[in-house]
């Protein structure tokens, strides 16, 4: 197995809710509540889940764009959360991020050259004299012409802007790139271009990706492993094929059954699992298994006991799910109530 590049242990991100006359903290939004996983060098790990499950927050907490409440983030053997602000700024050379919205994530008042120059300057990647050459190279790498360097972001299309974002992330020669819904805002044909570009870059520069997404089709296409999150917790983690072919957690099953099938032949028609209700509030999450309020398999036990991530003997190694009844559901001895 490859080297562990990123180790996240029991990461928690609580956002305080201020209230009352004196602005006291009255409660917390538990956006990420005890998440642990590893990312190996050179692989692509996807984090999926519906809106508000904490996937983007996890990415931001790892990068310390928001300071996490507690937990450990170890990158390349170094504890990121223990670094001083100044050292963390230097460390950002190795961890980069591509944002969701290509219209919002780049400063509208800088030209592409200024955007890239700033990154090169802060991290001192190449000597000053070679910066021009490096910028031209970067632009060619992401599929923009070097002649476009002196243009402003508003002169580019969404897909081109996302390439600018990718060029900025690449400019500092990072080891890990967190792609926070990097293609969600683009239309499908552009999505394909950008994803293929990202895969090409991964091969060329031996990058590691943490890919945060909600488009399961894209996720299946690009990931080596998948993490499924629900309400701030990981409900299932495993390699892409195991998750997609043999989902264990009822939530994963529901999520996967929502993928539209391009060719709806009868034999391919999967059973559609439709969940009831909405995602409960992360301010006051359900007790026990957080999914029990919407789970068709839930029993009284689920309301009390918190399920741990574990593997069953019929599951592939490294494939783990957090359901009390995953074994029984698989064997068919525990059936849905509706």
């Amino acid at each position, binding site marked *: 197995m490859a080297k562990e590049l990123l180790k996240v242990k029991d990461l928690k991100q609580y956002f305080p809710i201020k209230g009352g006359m004196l602005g006291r903290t009255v409660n917390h939004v538990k956006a990420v509540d005890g998440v642990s996983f590893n990312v190996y060098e050179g692989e692509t790990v996807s984090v999926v889940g519906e809106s508000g499950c904490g996937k983007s927050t996890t990415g931001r907490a790892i990068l310390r764009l928001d300071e996490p409440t507690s937990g450990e983030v170890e990158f390349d053997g170094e504890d990121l959360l223990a670094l001083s602000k100044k050292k963390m700024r230097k460390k950002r050379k190795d961890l980069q991020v591509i944002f969701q919205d290509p219209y*919002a994530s780049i*400063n509208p*008042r800088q030209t592409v050259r200024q955007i890239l120059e700033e990154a090169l300057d802060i*991290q001192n990647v190449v000597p000053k004299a070679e910066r021009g050459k490096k910028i031209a190279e970067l632009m060619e790498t992401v599929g923009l*012409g070097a002649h476009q360097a002196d243009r402003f972001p508003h002169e580019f299309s969404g897909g081109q802007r996302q390439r600018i974002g990718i060029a900025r992330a690449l400019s500092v020669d990072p080891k890990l790139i967190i792609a926070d819904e990097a293609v969600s805002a683009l239309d499908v044909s552009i999505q394909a271009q950008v994803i293929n570009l990202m895969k*090409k870059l991964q091969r060329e520069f031996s990058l590691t990706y943490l890919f945060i997404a909600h488009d399961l089709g894209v996720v299946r296409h690009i990931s080596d492993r998948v993490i499924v999150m629900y309400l701030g917790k990981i409900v299932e983690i495993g390699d892409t094929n195991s998750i997609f072919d043999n989902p264990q957690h009822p939530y994963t099953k529901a999520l996967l059954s929502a993928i539209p099938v391009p060719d709806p032949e009868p034999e391919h028609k999967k059973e559609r699992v439709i969940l009831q209700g909405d995602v409960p509030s992360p301010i006051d999450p359900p007790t026990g298994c957080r999914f029990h309020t919407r789970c068709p398999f839930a029993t009284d036990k689920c309301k009390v006991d918190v399920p741990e991530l574990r593997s069953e003997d019929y599951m592939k190694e490294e494939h783990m799910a957090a359901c009390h009844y995953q074994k029984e559901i698989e064997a068919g001895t525990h059936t849905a109530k509706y």
Partner: protein
Amino acid sequence: MQQLNAQETPSVEPIRPPEGQEPSKNKASKSPFQLAFARFRKNKLAIVGIVILVSIVLISVFADLLATHDPTKSNLLLIENGPSSEHILGTDGSGRDNFSRLLYGSRISLIVGFSAMIFTLMIGTTLGSIAGYYGGKIDSFIMRLTDLMQALPFFVLALTIISIVPEITIALFVTIIALTSWPNLTRIIRGTFLSLREQEFMLGAKAIGASDFRIIFKHFIPNAIGPITVNATLMMAQMIIFESGLSFVGMGIPQPTPTWGNMLSQAQNIRILRNHPEAWIPAGLGIFLTVLAINFIGDGLRDAFDPKSNRR
């Protein structure tokens, strides 16, 4: 997921300029600031404002050449004289030439307005940036301070300070105006920064390792330049009014320094008000035109920086 296959979408090719065309000869790329300037130039009122203001600035710069007399030299034989070929606008209560005082007066108004604006801008931008960028306790502290300042009546406060201080110089005057008028600008800049802080490009800058200082100066202030310029301009007009107002009640720049406010204060005398309109109307007109011109420019800038406010 067949549609995602690399073979079918080989479009990571660089976008190249058409054959035989020099890329650098392309139409020059325009920055958001240049686009705003192009919109500004189409605004007729703003151009009128610029023309008026530039004329007044030229008059104040070349006052030495245009003036017919020394504006501070009094001649007790020529008190409150009407217009004559020697004194176009007559003389004031101390026998000083009104026309020369009018020309030199523009200097004081512009210097006071401009330097008070710059000074206020410095205080407001610093405090507003800190409050808006860091938020939290420091923000609450600065905001309570602005609340406090805004609760104090400016005019009374200024009058109090001026009556305590033995000698009023222009520098002191400017300082008093700036120290009492920074809260408004601070609030505006804080508000702009608060909204900028929520934008993703701030995270983008942070993610490449930019320091707070760099984010404020390279990313936030350039994006806040619109509201800052507009408010600074309008503020300058306000400050000219303040100066005239204080001088009018005799609490401004002391005589014999020629200011428009000082000239207007002659009109407190009912005899001059009735019989010598040529002594005070030009000064009032000067204030009026300057403030109007600056406000036109400010409005033009607002429309230029915010293309959505298309009222024309």
